[in-house]
């Protein structure tokens, strides 16, 4: 392993390898560098590094010397009827220039209205009008950043009566028309399909294989509302068995795709996160062998 204090030559735009990575939270920064347990790559939330200086940026530069990095945004509010926040885009572009990530991703959602932010991933109606609107927005963003972004399917707890596309058809069509890639969150597929009674395998079948550039896996929580189970995307525990099963089915269709373990609340030790990544790696290897 590389010594933490030795600055290696930066690996410009190191591609994200088709193995398992871990979503890095600041509490694990040190362990990610000094622990013998390593993830294949790391992903961070872009907005956490929009500060002007200090430890966060310094730490990100350190880990960038040891790991391929992916930048994952949670606040661009692509689906909002508000204008795109130019300042946000400028900050993201500056971070991309500095970190040279292998992948840059965002969400299929909206999160602001009238200049106020809910800082949450809110569901969109899947209509022709929304599709046209999002194609323009993504085009604007990709043009400004000078690169492709990936769009992640959200977990959702409600649907709109006036949607005319299924979510997977919408995402697939959006990706074809805008040229964005897809970040397929298998936990979100499972959560939304369970909540709305969609078929998870159909969902995955609707997505064009070559558009999927990254997979997310995370834990969820089961809540009971009005006598019915609703799954909430809490990222506060290990990946559930059902999601591991769905992941294996997805890999059979998609082949080996870079896969990220997300765990954001009630953080476990770094070792536990790496162990989850090792588990994903075993499925990825099996998939690779089957293909060979």
């Amino acid at each position, binding site marked *: 392993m590389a010594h933490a204090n030795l600055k290696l030559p930066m690996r410009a735009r190191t591609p994200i390898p088709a193995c398992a990575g871990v979503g890095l939270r600041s509490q694990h920064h040190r362990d990610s560098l000094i622990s013998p347990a390593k993830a294949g790559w790391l992903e961070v939330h872009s907005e956490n590094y929009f500060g002007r200086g200090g430890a966060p940026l310094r730490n990100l530069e350190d880990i960038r010397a040891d790991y391929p990095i992916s930048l994952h945004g949670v606040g661009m509010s692509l689906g909002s009827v508000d204008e795109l926040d130019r300042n946000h885009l400028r900050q993201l572009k500056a971070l991309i220039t500095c970190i040279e990530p292998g992948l840059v991703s965002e969400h299929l959602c909206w999160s602001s209205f009238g200049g106020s932010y809910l800082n949450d991933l809110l569901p969109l109606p899947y*209509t022709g009008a929304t599709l046209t609107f999002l194609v323009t927005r993504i085009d604007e963003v990709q043009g400004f950043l000078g690169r492709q972004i990936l769009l992640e399917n959200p977990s959702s707890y409600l649907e709109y009566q*006036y949607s005319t596309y299924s979510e997977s058809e919408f995402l697939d069509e959006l990706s074809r028309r805008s040229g964005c890639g897809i970040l397929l969150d298998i936990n979100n597929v499972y959560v939304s399909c369970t909540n709305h009674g969609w078929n998870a395998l159909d969902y995955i079948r609707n997505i064009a294989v070559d558009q999927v550039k990254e997979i997310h896996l995370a834990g969820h929580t089961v809540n009971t509302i009005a006598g019915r189970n609703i799954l909430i995307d809490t990222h506060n525990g290990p990946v559930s068995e059902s999601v591991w099963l769905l992941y294996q089915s997805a890999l059979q269709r998609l082949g080996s795709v870079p896969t990220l373990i997300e765990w954001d609340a009630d953080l476990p030790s770094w070792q536990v996160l790496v162990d989850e990544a090792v588990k994903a790696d075993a499925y990825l290897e099996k998939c690779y062998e089957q293909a060979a």
Partner: protein
Amino acid sequence: MNRLHETQRDFSRYVLQNSDQIPAGIKANGIAVEQRLNIYRNNTRLGLTEVLREVYPVVNKLVGDAFFNRLAQAYINLHPSKSACLLTFGGRFSEVIAGYKDAQGLAYLPDTARLEWYVHEAYHAADDSLLDVPALAQLDAESYQRLGFKVHLTGRFIASDYPIGRIWIDNQCDARQESLIDLTKGGCCLLIFRPELEVGIVSLNYADYQCLTALASGLTLIRAVECVIATHPDFDIQPPLKQWLQMGLLTDFFIL
């Protein structure tokens, strides 16, 4: 797009302003639409509350989780987030606490919150340069008359009627046994400053505080010292100036 606009307008009002009006066009599918929306209302509000709790751990420790949650709800209602980047969310918490009826008995709380915000700001503020000491040493005596200094970009100042520095230290997670703090024992003047990566809180005497805040506001050294001498005739600038230069608090100089 009108329909998307209406949906987002009513949805955000429901979540952020606790409006009762249900956005049109949402499927019930076995669960009341209101209950579905409440999941988002709870998630959003809990998420923002946790962001505040991370920035204000001392306030949280002083008032407890339940009271803090109520303060956070009041904050979200009055000052919803204006940015996707949450590093800038929560800057007016001190104001909201000061105006919160049930917190009136906790007079030290607004200043404590302000101190925590300054620590948070200093942690993320831009890095700054080191002062060019040889260039400063070469200045002629005449230039001294018009000499001013730039204070480090992370530098923040606060003066309080309460011992908030002591309150802050005693309520850190790694603080030793809590001790009783006598709130009548007087206030304090503090400098919050991040020389490298760690934010430090430095206790200042009132004369030094006056001088530094005068310098930070752009006054020349001579003018700043004159301000201090008006209330502290014995003030000697040499020792503190040397100390500020040594600790890297003054990052540049200018001749006005």
